[in-house]
């Protein structure tokens, strides 16, 4: 099954995730909007006179708490998003692997601790690696550094996706061990073609991420539109799921020490819970 077909078959999940994101964002936005309206009432907005940006800055300047609320919402979304996506990882991967819903739930719940620990290892290894890379590439011009760093992040994402997919779909002997995360990196960067494909999807996701605030800012003033932003969020989500589906498609990979484990069975598309159950 191709990766894109996996995503297409999981379209209800994609829709559900997207709606969840939209709902969370809507709640945060409504809170801020309520604060803004409370701050300016009973006065109304000016007719469109080309000064929408000034009016936003005026409101933020007069009521700094609104700015704090906006930044707080964004910060909470970043932290909460990391935790939330980590928690949902098992469900998403199992669904993309076309598991039935009861198994999706079982994998999602049972693999949660391992996914959480591996997410931490991945974050640590990625941070350290990127810091090192940033130092090493200092002599390079910016135009050369940016692609290098983009590829590095994309490779790191692929490494994490390999580990997560393996944890959810195949037996892993040491699911909590940092070397499992390290071997994910080895597996990812051993396949430059895979990294290149993931980089392309990662760039799509990045563009979508950058486009969202930009679209919102460009739409300031009467008739400010949110649907372009929501659409961009959907595109970003689609790219991310496609990326994970590719890792499933390209797996399994070797995450156990060669001397300690047998060669993984490439035909295995069974749940680790099956193995544990046996």
């Amino acid at each position, binding site marked *: 099954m191709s990766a894109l077909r996996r995503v297409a078959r999981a379209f209800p999940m994609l829709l559900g*995730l997207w709606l969840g*994101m*939209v709902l*969370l*964002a809507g709640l*945060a*936005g409504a809170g*801020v909007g309520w*604060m*803004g309206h409370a701050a*300016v009432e009973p*006065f*109304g*907005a*000016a*007719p469109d006179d*080309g*000064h*929408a*940006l*000034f*009016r*936003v*800055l*005026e*409101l*933020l300047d*007069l009521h700094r708490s609104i700015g704090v*609320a*906006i930044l707080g*919402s*964004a910060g909470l979304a*970043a932290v909460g*998003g*990391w935790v*939330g*996506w980590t928690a*949902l990882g098992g469900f998403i991967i199992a669904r993309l692997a076309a598991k039935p819903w009861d198994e999706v739930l079982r994998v999602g719940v049972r693999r949660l601790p391992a996914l959480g620990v591996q997410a931490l290892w991945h974050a640590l290894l990625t941070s350290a690696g990127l810091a090192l890379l940033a130092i090493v590439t200092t002599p390079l011009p910016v135009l050369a550094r940016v692609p290098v760093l983009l590829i590095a992040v994309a490779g790191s994402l692929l490494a994490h996706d390999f580990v997560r997919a393996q944890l959810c779909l195949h037996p892993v002997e040491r699911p909590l061990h940092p070397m499992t995360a390290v071997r994910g990196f080895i597996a990812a960067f051993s396949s430059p073609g895979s990294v290149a494909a993931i980089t392309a999807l990662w760039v799509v*996701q*990045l563009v979508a*991420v950058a486009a969202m*605030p930009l*679209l*919102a*800012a*460009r739409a*300031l*003033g*009467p008739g*400010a*539109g*949110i649907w372009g*932003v*929501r659409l*961009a*969020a959907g595109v*970003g*989500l689609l790219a*991310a799921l496609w990326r*994970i589906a590719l890792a499933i498609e390209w797996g399994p990979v070797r995450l156990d020490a060669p001397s300690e484990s047998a060669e993984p069975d490439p035909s295995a598309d069974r749940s680790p819970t099956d193995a544990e159950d046996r």
Partner: protein
Amino acid sequence: MGHGTAVPEPTEPLRPAAQRGTIREDARVVDYAIDARLDTETHRIEGLERITWTNRSRVPASELQFHLYMNAFSAEDTAWMREGRGSHRSAMQGEETPWGYVDVQSVTTVADKAVLELVEGDDPTVGRIALPTPVAPGATIELDIAFVTQLPEVFARTGYAGDFVMAGQWFPKVAVLESDGRWSNHVFTFHSEFYADFGNYRVILDVPSDRVVGATGIRVAEEEDGDRIKLTYEAELVHDFAWTASPDFVEYVEVYDGIKIRQLVSPEFWDDAPAHLAAQIEALDSMQARFGPYPWSTITIVHPPGHAPGAAGMEYPTLYTTSPAYRLPGPVRELAFDQRLDGRFTTVHEFGHQYFQGLLASDEFTVPWLDEGMNTFSNTLVLEDAPAGEWTVKIAGHPLDVGDLLRLDMRQIEGRSIVDQPADAFVNLEGLYGRTVYRKTAAVMRSLRNIVGHPRFDAALADYTQRYRFTHPTADDLIEALTIGLQGPQPGAGVRLSGPEVADHEAVQLDVADFLRRGLRTTQRVAYGVRWIGNSKQVADAGWHRDDDGVLRETPEPQSREPEALVVLERTGDFVTPVEVEVQFEDGEVERSWWDGQPTTTTLRWPGRRVERVTIDPDRHLELEAIRYDNHRYARNARQPEGPADDLDVLTQALVLSMLGGVGP
């Protein structure tokens, strides 16, 4: 490398008579002939200056007073250093040569070789020489002064950084003797700048021959001697002489309107030069059209090296230093962020000083707003006159214009600071100087210009700038010129603002002098708001009334009542000024009128009509008004456009979605 280096030097420091505008015959007060030698090892300038000073006052002068500006950096307890505490505009005092000074070593009269003594004041930035014989009004005295100037590492406009030298305020300079015989010789303080008389300069600079040199005026001779070169400069009718030198400067030269524009560019900023030239030309076009011809034949723009940021952004006659232009890539500018306030604006601002202090040589210590504030105001007009239009910053395609930025600034200082004060009335740590002197002045002038109409204001200001060229105008001179120029010489007559449909006795008028007094000499804040808006039924006479016989009789309820539109306006600030009001009725008709703003509230009625919206100051004339959100109000049930709260809702959603999408899944 270089651009236009073959352009010849002008033959005269002033432009031809037909192009340079009027020059007053009594403008020239003091001439300087200076021989100066730069020692690049010690960073010292050894100088000998001959001063030819004419007493233009009405009383004999028994002494000559001097500015010794470089002594501001001589010790940590000078007036300047006490305020600056070792830094200026984020640049820090150097460690290699932290101190600078000017040491007058001898003073002799040319006529009889009498040896005189220059005595420094309590603060070493001022000094005086007692004269053996008073100089009569109209008479002239010549003095020879030998001096040594130690340049500090540059952190506050003047000094050196490696091989780069920016020599500003580097020689003993005669203070201004006012016409009543009073010396204006102010201690050099942190915010105060300079004040001097016009005169002619002939300066010989002896520097290493590898230095690329720029200076006030024109270069008239050069004489190479081994590894040194002597460069002779002449300038006419200027009140200062500055120069710069560096072996690394690259020249970028163009001629515009007969003026040689020479940029001395540190190599790292070479790519900026065309943008600065464009800004310079925009400034020239705008300011010559508004304030009269630029009189001199050269403009030298200095781009200090990146390791000498303290030298950036300072004006001297025909020469100024600018700062880097930060140009983002085209797509970023188009989609996300663009601005016109980088080094290109520095260029506009510092060139603007060629008018507001270079030509209109006000006392920068006593009335700093007269140059900094009026210059900032004129700079905003340069921006608006330029082809790019009125915006200054664009975020995601949405512009902030000058008025928007000024309002945001006014919010920070409203009710806190008076414009018309001496420079040393502002405490550096309070951070009010720039916003008050530069920006509030600009907001006052722009607000007045908007209210009375641009052509009318521009004509009055042009009259001021033409009349006071090559003089020392005061604040009262400007206020009087604007008042008379806008409302005529008759006292009590204001500028009529109401339209012709309003009878004279009901017409709203603006008292220009009162507006300027409130704006410049008080802390009053401009604040208007819509207190109430609604529609009611007209009042009739239903009910019980006594008739002529004192008997109560009932008047019945009328069968139908006409509606009445009601609007209550409020002046919540103490700055009283007329303000325009726009009312939109339910039938779609829009009507405008002026409210004089005298009472703190007023109720406006429109019998027979129903109102939908009211907006105070719909054309955003009053840029002094920091808070505008209460200027709009809608009647109940009226349809309102989405406002900033809705924008922030959308922005928040976008940021949250962006964060959620950025971290996963």
